[in-house]
């Protein structure tokens, strides 16, 4: 890449045929990423997509960048090695709800708490697509699936709540086919540190329309798109979120004639962690909207920069003298003429 030509989405597509089911939400995310990267202006040869196993984890094969399709749940560990070995690389982790939160939950937590500089795109379809439709840790109670033919009984985990609890410094949400996805991706990329993005992705084969209550056109009013410095409004601005100062929890208020101040609607401050916790835990469905966009952002030092900096500081002025290293400690000389007994 000596001459920097303006790249297009096509330049980020490989010659490999895309192998998802027709109609799968993964296509839309792939398109969005392929469109966004040239807009950000990244160098494909400095970009690495790392995934685990799952339908979504096939993603790297379709990106004309470096890529590693690893093993189930372990993408964050491989990403950590890649980034520590070469912090110049721009690392994207692609994962699913099963990959990131079932088998891989621990690594997801640790990559977030350590704050490795990377983007984590979690394709949440609330199902195991690749293994043919078993319920996942994000599936709702009552999900019927091959492994739960009479309905699942365990309470799901909320990816974004889990990310926050794990110490994430950037938490965002998007929808596979929504036009705002590129903006969310750009924000994630701009954030230094681990950017956690939960993408609601429709699995047309095993969990079709599970997000329709807020993704369907007629339900778009249930989307609360957050923007820094802007009031938390939804339903075309007719409703807003405020804090119930009695019960110390969030509350929905009607906004009359756009007077959101009057309704005491909260202005979104992405660095407010307490509010972020409440936003991700809004009981979606029961009249509550889904919080989308950048829910929380408050940068902190990144893991790899701290490591690199420590290593640099400690090795400054110390030559890598192998002979000196092996000769260290308390040593003794045996004289030229060996003593024989």
């Amino acid at each position, binding site marked *: *890449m*000596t001459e920097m030509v303006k790249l297009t989405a096509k330049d980020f597509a*490989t010659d*490999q045929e895309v192998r998802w089911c027709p109609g799968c939400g993964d296509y839309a995310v792939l398109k969005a990423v392929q469109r966004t990267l040239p807009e950000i202006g990244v160098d494909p*040869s*400095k970009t*690495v*997509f*790392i995934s685990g196993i799952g339908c979504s984890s096939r993603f*790297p*094969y379709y*990106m*004309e960048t*470096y*890529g*590693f*399709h*690893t*093993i189930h749940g*372990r993408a*964050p*560990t*491989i*990403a*950590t*090695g*890649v*980034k*520590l*070995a*070469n912090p110049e*690389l721009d690392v994207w982790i692609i994962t699913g709800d099963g990959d990131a939160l079932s088998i891989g939950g*621990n*690594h997801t*937590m*640790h990559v977030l708490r350590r704050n490795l500089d990377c983007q984590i795109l979690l394709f949440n379809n609330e199902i195991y697509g690749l293994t043919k439709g078993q319920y996942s840790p994000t599936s709702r109670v009552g999900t019927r699936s091959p492994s739960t033919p009479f309905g699942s009984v365990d309470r799901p985990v909320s990816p974004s709540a889990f990310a926050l609890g794990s110490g994430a410094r950037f938490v965002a949400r998007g929808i596979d086919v929504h036009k705002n996805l590129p903006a969310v991706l750009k924000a994630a990329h701009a954030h230094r540190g681990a950017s956690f993005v939960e993408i609601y992705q429709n699995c047309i084969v095993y969990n079709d329309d599970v997000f329709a209550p807020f993704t369907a056109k007629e339900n778009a009013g249930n989307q609360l798109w957050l923007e820094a410095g802007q009031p938390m409004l939804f339903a075309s601005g007719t409703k807003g979120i405020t804090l119930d100062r009695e019960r110390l929890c969030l509350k929905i208020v009607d906004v009359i004639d756009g007077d959101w101040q009057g309704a005491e609607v909260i202005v979104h401050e992405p660095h407010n962690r307490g509010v972020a916790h409440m936003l991700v835990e809004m009981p979606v469905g029961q009249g509550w909207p889904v919080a989308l966009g950048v829910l929380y952002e408050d940068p902190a030092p990144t893991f790899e920069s701290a*490591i690199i900096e*420590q*290593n640099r500081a*400690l*090795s400054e002025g*110390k030559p*890598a003298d*192998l002979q000196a*290293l*092996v*000769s*260290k*400690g*308390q*040593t*003794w*000389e*045996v*004289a*030229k003429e*060996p*003593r*024989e*007994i």
Partner: protein
Amino acid sequence: MATATKFVTSEDHARDVPEAVVVRFAGDSGDGMQLTGSQFTLSTALAGNDLATFPDFPAEIRAPQGTTFGVSAFQINFGSATIDTAGDEPDVLIAMNPAALKTNVDALKLGGLIIVDEGEFGARNFAKAGYEQNPLEDGSLAKWQVVPFNISQLTLDAVKPFGLGNKEALRCKNMWTLGLALWMFDRPRKPVEDWLKAKFAKAPQLAEANIVALNAGHAFGETAEIGSPLKQHHVDPAPAEPGLYRTVTGAEAISLGLVAGAQLAGLPMFFGGYPITPASAILHHLARYKEFGVVTFQAEDEIAAIGAAIGASFAGSLGVTSSSGPGIALKTEAMGLAIMTELPLVIVNSQRGGPSTGLPTKTEQSDLYQAVYGRNGDAPMPVIAARSPADAFDCAIEACRIAVQYMTPVMLLTDGYIANAAEPWKVPDTTTFERFDVAFHDAPLGEGEAVNPYARDDKLKRVWIKPGTAGLMHRIGGIEKNVGTGHIDYDPANHQAMTDIRADKVLGVANSIPPQGLEQGEAGAALAVVGWGSTYGPIAQAVRRARARGLDVAHVHIRHIWPLPTNLGELLRGFGKVIVPEMNNGQLKTLLRDQYLVDCRPLTKVSGQPFKIREIETAIDEALA
């Protein structure tokens, strides 16, 4: 050991001018016996003796004082001749309390010397140790020579001027004991004093108190009017090649070898680890070598540790990971990924007693099966094994060489004994080492050419393309790859081809290693004793003794466990009989019988303890009877 030049029988000589002495320090976990032992080791090395050590400590951090399971021991064998093991039976036992006496006395040589701290021999401690009465008085120690002093009191008296609390003052007991031991073997105290000063740099008063205790112990030996059992012995230096020497433990040697290996490959090293006994020390050592481009990463678990190492290798570093049995088990799936993606990786397995949590602080060789066979799918991987602390340095370099020259994960086997034991090491001249610099693939694509990450050289090594290289973007992963393009491919013929390539590539490593040699004896001997790893010491001594008795026995010691040296089959077929001593239930034996259909007979020991020389000698005698 590394410095052996001449063969001299040891231990079987008359005792007046001893040529080898085995001393065992034993005390409560809190008594600092490991420090005493390692300082005594250092002074022994400085005195020019050859030596081998065996630290033996409990799994508990600090078990309740005075109990038998809280006993920590350190054994050293040193002499004026070649020393290969820490010794079968101690000549001298220094026991700091009744529990230490109880758990260690049975190993003592008939007529051996016992020094005990009388100050600890009270009713409470008898009860804790499970003695019904005072063993010093009931005649039960009659086979040995017992010399009791009140070391506790003598230490308290010595350090009184410092006004330390009782507990702190008693902490100096181990230095008093060391002082006595240094006197017994005519050793300088200066190196210990220097070490104490460095250690307590921030508390010079403690340094002084310890030095005073050390001198007091020494002076006690000089002046006390004790009978014949306690007298000064001088052990002559062992013959050794001239040069600079140091002591080294296996964990240290592996760490140094890995650094050297990465340097010789011209690569930065990435080490991903998760603490586990007895592997942790490697992480601890490497964490200090920042200036060598070593990045250490304490991961959240063993899977993350190997995952990160694989990621680092993908990114162009030399990825290394390390653990012991249970942790290696957890890495199994990821090893398969490294095999499939053909990335260089060194996996160090410091074996310990198993199965499961087993005996974490004890030694064993029972992970050979796991190393060679323990993966899903046909998943070949080179395996090499270190025989001693010093040898571990060379093996670590060799593991790095194979990893980068063949683009493959390599497992390096060591064990709890090697990891903790120390031996003298002739510092090598690293400038003479053969380099194996890595050439990353970065040639721009020709017209119409596609990137092929699975393009191979004639050794079947695939190209290594660093992410960040302009224009060579590509994707790898754990699914089967097309033999020609590197794209995903499920075709039957292709899978067969790739399976064959993976197997052949690893088998091909045998072409880059020396033919199997003999440690002692001749090809075609009546009996061969075939070993691997840390059984080296006892096998070498046992064979030496047997040969000294005129027996026609050879010693073969295998470093390259997989692939095996190409001449090994022929060599084995030539012997009259073959026995294979292992600290497991016969694992190398399986490999040899499978590969060569030679009737290799197992000699097994699974007790968490190294073989005794005598055990192997007996087996030799029986085999030749």
